[in-house]
């Protein structure tokens, strides 16, 4: 696995060599601001243009998880005046663009169209006004499947009346997703058992409380354990998923980390490369289609990857229905 920076270098070099000199004008220039280096989503973004044989000039900057570098990059962008700015990740996007209704022209990027990639809840995080109408020349993609789609995916595997959802109460994204799920379940006549992870004295959630939470879930009669996109839970995914198996609880998540890289049962995930390609599709509409980013809705993929871990299924005795095996990705 080569270092992100070298991949980024190769990416730009490769594209630069591949791009033929256009008789009319130069290829569009895209400033890519990354949060934690070049990864598959950026691969998907770049490869889209290569597959469409559309030459682009990619300029890559990586903040390497240090948000203090953002203002300097914003100034650089103002000077460079690229045709488009690409932003990776929720935190970075919020830092660079600011809220849509409290935009500070000095600190935040303005006047240049932007697309964001791998972002959760752009509306709740006030990056855009609404998915259908961003309210500013910014658009992008969400990589988490809509909660309603996730609920349908769970039901497609096995119908339920009660779901338990552990989450880190300190993570707003996570809490919001769980809240939304609760509403959707209530509308279906099902129940959601919320299980916030207890917070220790030092203000951090307590991983040792996880087994007790799961026992509580089982005692409460939960038929599924739903794992929201939650960094804390991700960090302790091995413990979480293995305990769930021990308690006989099928787990469902919206991130492939819990299924492919832990022992979760199922998940409806977006491939980062596909999301990156989708973002590039929106970028193409802006660059060659001449559309205003504010007129392009923020969307998720229409088709997700349904991942099922067959070993967990065997251990739990919860095999997926045949119809699901047609589209599912056994892991």
């Amino acid at each position: 696995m080569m270092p992100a920076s070298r991949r980024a270098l190769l990416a730009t070099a490769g594209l630069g060599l591949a791009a033929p000199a256009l008789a009319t004008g130069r290829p569009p220039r895209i400033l890519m601001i990354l949060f934690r280096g070049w990864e598959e989503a950026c691969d998907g973004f770049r490869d889209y243009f290569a597959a469409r044989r559309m030459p682009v000039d990619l300029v890559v900057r990586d903040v390497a998880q240090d948000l203090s570098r953002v203002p300097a990059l914003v100034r650089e962008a103002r000077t460079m005046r690229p045709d488009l700015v690409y932003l990776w990740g929720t935190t970075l996007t919020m830092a660079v663009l600011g809220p849509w209704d409290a935009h500070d022209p000095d600190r935040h990027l303005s006047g240049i169209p932007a697309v964001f990639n791998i972002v959760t809840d752009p509306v709740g995080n006030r990056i855009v006004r609404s998915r259908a109408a961003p309210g500013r020349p910014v658009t992008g993609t969400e990589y988490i499947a809509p909660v309603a789609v996730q609920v349908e995916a769970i039901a497609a595997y096995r119908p339920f009346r009660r779901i338990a959802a552990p989450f880190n109460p300190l993570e707003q994204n996570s809490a919001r997703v769980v809240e939304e799920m609760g509403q959707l379940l209530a509308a279906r006549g099902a129940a959601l058992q919320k299980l916030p992870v207890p917070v220790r004295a030092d203000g951090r959630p307590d991983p040792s409380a996880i087994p007790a939470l799961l026992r509580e879930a089982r005692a409460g009669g939960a038929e599924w354990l739903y794992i929201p996109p939650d960094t804390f839970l991700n960090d302790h995914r091995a413990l979480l998923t293995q305990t769930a198996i021990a308690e006989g609880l099928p787990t469902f998540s919206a991130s492939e980390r819990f299924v492919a890289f832990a022992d979760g049962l199922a998940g409806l995930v977006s491939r980062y490369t596909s999301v990156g390609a989708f973002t590039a599709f929106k970028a193409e509409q802006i660059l060659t289609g001449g559309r205003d980013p504010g007129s392009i809705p923020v969307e998720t993929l229409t088709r997700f990857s349904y991942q099922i871990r067959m070993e967990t299924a065997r251990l739990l005795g919860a095999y997926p229905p045949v119809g699901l095996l047609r589209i599912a990705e056994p892991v």
Partner: protein
Amino acid sequence: MTAPVIRRLVATLVAVSVAMLLACVALVSAAALSAFEREVRPALEQEAAALGGVVAAPIETAISLGVPLDALPGVAAYFETVLAGRQGVAWLVLAGADGTPMVRAGPRAEAFEPAPPEGAAARRLDAAYDTRLRLGPVAEAPRAFLHVGMSRAPLEAAIADTRWDVLIVMLVGAILAIELLRYVLERAVTGPLAAADRLAARLAAGDLAVTADDAAPDEAGRLARLANALARRLADRRARLEWLAQEVASGGAAAARGAAAVLARVAARFGMGAAEPAMPGAATARLPLFLFVAAEQLSTSFIPLLGRDLARAGGAADPGMLAAVAIAAFVTAVALATPPGGRMAARRGPRATILAGGVIAALGFLGAALATTIWGFILARILCGVGYALVSIACQAQMVAVAPRGRLAGTLGGFTGAVMTGAVCGTAIGAVLADRIGQGPTFLVSAAMVGLVLLLALRGFPRGAPATLAMPLGLAQEARLALRAPAFLALLLLAAVPAKLVLTGFVFYLAPIALNDLGLSQSAVGRYVMLYGFCMLPAIALGGWIADRTRLGPALIWGAAVANGIALALPFAAPLELALPVAIAITGLAQGLAAAPMLAAVAAAARPEEGATAPVLLAFLRLGERFGSMLGPFAAAALLAGAGMGQALAAIGVVSAATGVVYALAMLLRRAVRPAIGVPA
């Protein structure tokens, strides 16, 4: 005098030909269907294998992932998803390694019979062809089996449809056989025998100037030659007598007086009559008429559909109305071309008229076949209408000219019969043709048939104008005369015109569209539209019988109209697919029953003393009917666009029933009023 022998001949030949025709067609069709079944089975099994491969994939995945078969959830639901929206699959069955069915799904799942694993992979069961696929790793014994049952129901539906078409071919073939036999026997047997009879009678009466046409190589020709030989012999003997008389006369005045007396005795018997030219019989005109009407009616069941499609392709705003224009244009052309056609037949003779009409109609059919826009199509239909008017006038004139004295009504009945049977045959077989070869090529077949008609006319129609034809009156004159007969006006406006309105508006416009929109095949649409003519034919005879023998004639006229109206309300009571054919059949019955009484009523309404003779009124009646025919499609199209099919049908039905009731009231009023004003009943 020779009738019984000929009648027996005709009956025998008709029986033989129809029986052989039915037998041959039935056998050939049966062979075709069994050949098809043999060949279609492997095709269905291939489809089953393809489908089975796709359906089995996730089950194979499950097996390879180690899921135990009996713990595999959702198989039934999965099968249901696959089957939803897919026609022709009778069942999907998952069976274990020993062959016992574990999961069944599909409309005929209960008919599945389990099979042992060693049995054949493809079986023919009652309900379906069953194909079996093995599931599991290739190198091992099969872990499970997937059975795909391909239903024979769609196949059987297609075969049933084909059987109907074969029945139509049988029907049309039988009718065609009868018409052709009638034609050939008339020309080869009946006609020559009657001519020889007349000729021999004249010879016996002393008219030696007659000759017979002896060109034919068969019995008729030989007979004619014998007759001519006899005539020559008699003439020779007469000539010899005259020579002898001269010889005698040279012997002196007294001898001359004696010879003259002898000659006078002979001359009393032998006169010089006018030669009677050989006249073809009425059948000469009947077969061409039958073929021509059939050619025209080939397209009846799909003209509104074709018109609608052409109009849509041209981007018209109201395709339904333009399709109605196509029908109305034809009827209008017929109406407008009929008076000049009659004049042409009177002046130049039927032969010239039918040739002209045939050429124009053929051009019209070619144009219809090649039309790419609705306006081109309408123009072609106008040509067809002009041709139709000319041809039918020519045939009618020819039949009238050769009709034996006093049998004019019967001859005209033959004319109507030929038109109706031609219509029935044409509609039915045309629909089948259009189903197989397309609508455009069907018009080409019409054109070819018109070519045949032209050949028959060239051969059979005599040149020149017969003396018996009267010059038809002008339109205005006819109208003025017709208006002098109020009973006739009532009949025209309240019975004849609404009837034609129903015919063209419902049977020719709405019904094909409604049936097509129900999803019926073109052949089926044609079969149903044909029901009109099919039911009308016997009803005409029945109506004539009733009118002759009872006093119910007038009641039939308005009764039929009311019944017609009620029939059109059926779609509200029953599903359209059942109600429409019944309504078409009832329309045919009703209009058939009313046909003869209507003609009788026209004859009764005539006021010859004022010039409104029966023929004049009849001609005006036809004109009025054409007007109703022209109005029908427009009214129907407007109703359809405005209110929808059900309401359109009901509105036309209301018109029919209402005018019938008003006519009945008018007749009632007239009967009540008549004694009061002293008009003779």
